[in-house]
């Protein structure tokens, strides 16, 4: 592997100052949570930060206690430290009791070996798994100026929100977090900021090289989940081209705030079909104030894929996503 220096800060402030100093000295920097994805990129010399090449300094966050674990917030919500492993997220009873879709999404990631080491922040911030980017093409995501999928092999690419890059956001956990209006708490040289999903994730039309607004010296410290009432039911479904250990061809996180048989409000967020976790508001609104029937769920599925713009080889994703939404809504409604 290319050489680099590993640093082990013990606080978020220290981690950020190491990054700031290294960047100021002309060295490229990357933060490591579990590092499972990062190391594959470093070994293959695929730029983690677009255009930066392999990192000179890896800042290992594992020793930062304040970033690990799930805690209850005063407002009744939860704060999930960025370093919390996916195994710990899915096993946490506060998460599964009120935010079941998050627990289900976490346990759907890769394998036990990966979930034991991989972190929730790392899962949200992992780079895309587009086969062009991962195989050394000089695409937008690597710092280049084109998306090879447009006229190439785009079976697994975006049907929503694409252009000029057509990657799909690879995280399973992110759609579930967004379904609960999660807040992303970020720390960097310029202080701390708390960002909504709309502010945190970026479409390629706004920035084709990055999937989120994190600067090179910024860390995703924690993810805050606002209080969810005991009447919220949620679930996550992930479609894969094999039974396990791969990314979503499409996924859906659904949260329904129920009053008896009536749905007060709904969140529906899709993964694996757009460059960011993709909220389908028109479909959500159809459920508000309604009793959920098979007919309504079917109409919601149709509404969810309205406006989809498939590429030459991923047209199958439109009816697939429609049925995925329909079935997930019905399953969560129970």
């Amino acid at each position: 592997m290319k050489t680099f220096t590993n640093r082990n800060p013990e606080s978020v402030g220290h981690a950020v100052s190491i990054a700031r100093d290294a960047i100021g000295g002309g060295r490229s920097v990357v933060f490591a949570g579990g590092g499972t994805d990062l190391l594959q990129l470093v070994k293959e010399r695929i730029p983690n930060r677009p255009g930066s090449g392999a990192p000179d300094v890896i800042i290992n966050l594992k020793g930062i206690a304040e970033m690990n674990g799930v805690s209850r917030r005063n407002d009744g919500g939860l704060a999930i430290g960025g370093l919390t492993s996916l195994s710990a997220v899915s096993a946490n009873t506060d998460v599964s009791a009120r935010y079941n879709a998050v627990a289900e999404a976490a346990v759907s990631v890769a394998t036990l070996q990966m979930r034991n080491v991989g972190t929730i922040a790392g899962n949200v911030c992992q780079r895309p798994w587009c086969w062009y980017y991962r195989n050394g093409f000089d695409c937008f995501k690597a710092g280049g100026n084109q998306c090879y999928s447009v006229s190439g092999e785009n079976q697994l690419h975006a049907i929503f929100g694409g252009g000029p890059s057509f990657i799909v956001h690879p995280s399973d956990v992110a759609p579930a977090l967004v379904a609960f209006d999660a807040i992303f708490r970020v720390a960097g040289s310029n202080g701390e900021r708390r960002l909504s999903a709309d502010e945190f994730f970026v479409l390629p039309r706004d920035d084709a090289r990055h999937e989120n607004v994190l600067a090179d010296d910024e860390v995703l410290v924690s993810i805050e989940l606002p209080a969810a009432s005991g009447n919220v039911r949620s679930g996550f479904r992930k479609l894969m081209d094999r039974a396990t250990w791969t990314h979503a061809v499409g996924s859906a996180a659904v949260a329904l705030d129920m009053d008896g048989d009536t749905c007060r409000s709904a969140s529906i967020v899709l993964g694996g079909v757009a460059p960011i976790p993709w909220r389908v508001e028109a479909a959500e609104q159809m459920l508000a104030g309604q009793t959920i029937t098979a007919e309504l769920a079917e109409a919601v599925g149709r509404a969810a894929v309205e406006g989809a713009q498939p590429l030459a080889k991923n047209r199958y994703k439109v009816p697939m996503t429609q049925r995925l939404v329909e079935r997930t809504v019905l399953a969560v409604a129970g």
Partner: protein
Amino acid sequence: MKDSTNGDLSRREFIGGTGAAIVAVNATTATAQDRDAAEARAIAEVPRTRIEITVNGQRQSVDVEDRWTLVELLRDHLGLTGTRIGCNRGECGACTVLIDDEPAYACSTLAVWADGRSIRTVEGVERDGKVSTLQQAFIEHNAPQCGFCTSGQLMSATALLERNPSPTAQEIREALSGNLCRCSNYNAIVEAVQAAVKMGGA
């Protein structure tokens, strides 16, 4: 082949011997000496860190290059070659070891990140010089075919039985789903784990 003078050489010794011979030939030229010196300087500049790590119950202090993966430390520097490198990118499971009793891919974490942690490898599962119950069951049920994935399978199965002494077949399949077997001998592997459960555990 009974007359072969190399009859007692293992494959590893043979490859090692070949490498030494190549170095000896190169060293006879000045340019090669320059190259070796440059290489030695480059290696001296590689960032290194001293870590404390417990491997199969033995605590040790090791000076590691920051860039070494855990599996490189185990195989190339601690001589524990039971842990395999298959894909070296977290896609096969052959390098599975236990880090603080939890299965993890040793190719996908750095040795320097294992500072203060306890690692168990396939060399550590034997009991009093005898194979473990799981290993015995693997032998009896022909769970290894080519054998390359076996040590990883054993580590995942060991961790499973330690946290769940009587798993269902489905639970066994799920626990081993992060370990590929290119011989596709999955049924025999699951049978072996089930047999180990009947024989009294890991």
